[in-house]
């Protein structure tokens, strides 16, 4: 399933709603459903706020895939090249004016098994993967 979305916060939440409907229809466990909804919200918000600068005329794509043992959510945008996985991992304390990306990617990492960024032509491609077979509480390792 692929959605074409405009670069607005409301469209990010439309993608989140679509994911939850997609996930519920496939009996994705509630905790994974919530976790990926949040990861999608954070990554989608980063695209809207930073890559596409909230220009509602610009669009980005969200694709949802379910294989039975894993879910993959892919986000594509044509903003400037930017790898959100290279953002420094957020420190534990939120006692500062940390830019949105720091918090968002930190949350997304917690709820996914893999976040992979690639650049193909003029597109940023971000893939979020969550395995069902992993033990509850397993976290995506932070970069060195």
């Amino acid at each position, binding site marked *: 399933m692929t959605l074409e979305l405009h670069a607005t916060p409301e469209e990010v939440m439309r993608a*989140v709603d679509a994911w939850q409907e997609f996930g519920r229809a496939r009996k994705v466990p509630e905790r994974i459903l919530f976790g990926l909804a949040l990861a999608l*919200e954070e990554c989608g*918000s980063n695209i809207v706020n930073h890559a596409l600068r909230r220009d509602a005329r610009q669009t980005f794509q969200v694709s949802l895939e379910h294989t039975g043992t894993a879910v993959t959510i892919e986000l594509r945008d044509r903003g400037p090249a930017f790898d959100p996985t290279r953002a420094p991992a957020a420190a534990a*304390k*939120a006692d500062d004016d940390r830019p949105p990306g720091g918090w968002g990617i930190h*949350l997304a990492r*917690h709820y996914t098994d893999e976040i992979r960024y690639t650049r193909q032509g003029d597109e940023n491609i971000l893939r979020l993967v969550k395995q069902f077979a992993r033990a509850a509480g397993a976290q995506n390792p932070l970069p060195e």
Partner: protein
Amino acid sequence: MPLKILTLKTVGDKNLGAATVKLTGSLDTATAPDLERQLSPVLASQIKHLVFDLTELNFISSAGLRVFSMARKQLKERGGQASFVNLQPQIQEVFEIMKSLPGVAIFKDMAELDHYLAMRQRAHEENRQ
């Protein structure tokens, strides 16, 4: 997923200046600006203690956490505090992931919060004597 915001009347001694904000639904990138706008007059007042009742909040993202963080900072500057009560399990987990908002009190339920406010009230009165 919409967000309903209900600001309840001041509770407790007016000198403590406490108010409760009940959130229902989703606090996310689309709805966080609404909360920020509605909190603005509350934070501009002499309110020292803001209680966020999250009983019916079922989704929160970093956009929402930033609004909480902003509220906490403003309250802290005047010797106050933000408290959060009745977090659903998935919301509690988000707070824990971020080790969110140091200096913020999270209460299991309103009874625990009432006890805390009563203790603060007694401490406030003792300081005045």
